[in-house]
Each structure stands twice: as structure tokens, then as C-alpha cells.
């Protein structure tokens, strides 16, 4: 497995979307590839931190609506 594929599988596994075979191949790759080991480690930490922070975001559609309202209010204010 080449490095770019290893990183891709590592990204997918952060979202539990990597297959068992992919994960086995990734782990074999990590045994001999130091660079990808580093990436995997940081990537897993990022996932943990984001889970710990219990982040909340607005839905993009909802942001669009907010934008429209704000633009309307801005226009009204300028007139």
C-alpha cells in the first residue's frame, strides 16, 4: 500500500468508513513507514479532541437563511 492510500484509509477510519481489509493493510504499512505513523497518530488525536469538545455547528442551509435575513436588515438600515 502506497503512502497516499494509507493516509486516505486512515482518514476514512476516523469516520469508521474503512473496511477491515483496508485497516489490516494500513496497519501493515504503518509497521515500516514512520511518516504515516506520525500522520495516523495526529489524526487519531484530532478525532479525540473534536469528540471531547462536543462541538456544535449550524446547518449550512440555516446559515444561508441567516445570511439572507441579515442582508435584508442591512439594506433596510442603509435606506
Amino acid at each position, binding site marked *: 500500500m502506497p503512502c497516499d492510500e494509507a*493516509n486516505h484509509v486512515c482518514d476514512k477510519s476516523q469516520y469508521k468508513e474503512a473496511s477491515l481489509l483496508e485497516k489490516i493493510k494500513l496497519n501493515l504499512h504503518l509497521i515500516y513507514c514512520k511518516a504515516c505513523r506520525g500522520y495516523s497518530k495526529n489524526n487519531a488525536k484530532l478525532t479525540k479532541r473534536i469528540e471531547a*469538545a462536543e*462541538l456544535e455547528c449550524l446547518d*449550512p442551509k440555516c*446559515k444561508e437563511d441567516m445570511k439572507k435575513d*441579515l442582508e435584508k436588515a442591512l439594506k433596510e438600515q442603509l435606506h
Partner: protein
Amino acid sequence: MPKHEIHPDKWIDLYADYLFNYTVTRVSDREIAQDLVQDTFLAGLKSMKNFKGEASERTWLISILKRKIIDHYRKINSNKGKAEVRIQYNDAESEGDWLEERVADPFDKTAEDSMQNSELGDAIHNCLGKLPKKQANVFKMKTVLNYETEVICNELNITASNLWVIIHRARTAMADCLKENWF
């Protein structure tokens, strides 16, 4: 010190998620949080003249939002009637304004936990703010809103392999950005 400027047309892209995250952890209701954030932007618009540029736009908006959140707690208190005011302290030695205390810490976690969480949340939102807009959008939809890959691809009109390239770049940048203080 350079004066900060005000650009209401960029507020939603730059601050909506940050303010929403801040509010949701304090009022524990997504719909109410969304309304409070919207109210904050509209109030900010009305009092733009008062913006002196001494603090950043974000700090200024947060100060408006904080007042909105306190108002919200006042309002639900008066809606529920006087019975609600009679919150008893268990021992005679505790005293204070119960309303303010509820505003400061209205969630079930210990104060320390939530403080750490909101610091970490702030740090993550700061890093998200440094990503290019499209990267930030895709990353948030995938990682925070937990949308299916297919849904994001349809919505943004990109292919799955596009999506994974963007996610990879975003994750690399996010890890770099958080490395110093949080890894």
C-alpha cells in the same frame, strides 16, 4: 494599535458557528441557540455605530450575545412565575444570586470539565477559522454535523474523491494548528 473594522456581510461565515457553539453549551437547546445568535447579529447591526474598534469584531459580538443569553434566562424565569424563584440553598452558608449562577453554569457537567471543553472548543473554532472557506465547510459537515459523504457531495456538487482530498487537507491543517497547545 490598529483599529478593528466592522464587516457585517462577513459575520455569518466568520462567526455564526463560533457563536452558535458558544450558545448551545450555555442554553442546551439548538433552536433557542440559533435564535439567540440571529438576534445577536441583528442587534450588532443596529448598534454598529457604537463599535469603537478597540476589541475585535468577534469579542464585540460575544459581548452582545452574553447579554442575550442572560436576557433569555431572565425571560424563562419570569414565564414560569414566582414559584421558580424560590430555589432553596441546601445549607445556610451558601448565598448569592441564583439567577446569575444559573447563567454562569447551567449544565450538568462539573465546572472544570465544561471550562476545559469550551477552551478546547474555542481553540478548535479558531483553527477552523484559519482554514479556507470550502475546506472548513466540508470538514464541519463531515466531522461536526456527521453528514453522510453522499449527502455532502450532492449538496456541494463534488465527487467523493474530491471530498476525501479536502478532508485530508483540512485534517492535516487542523492537526498542525492544534498541535502546539492541545496534542
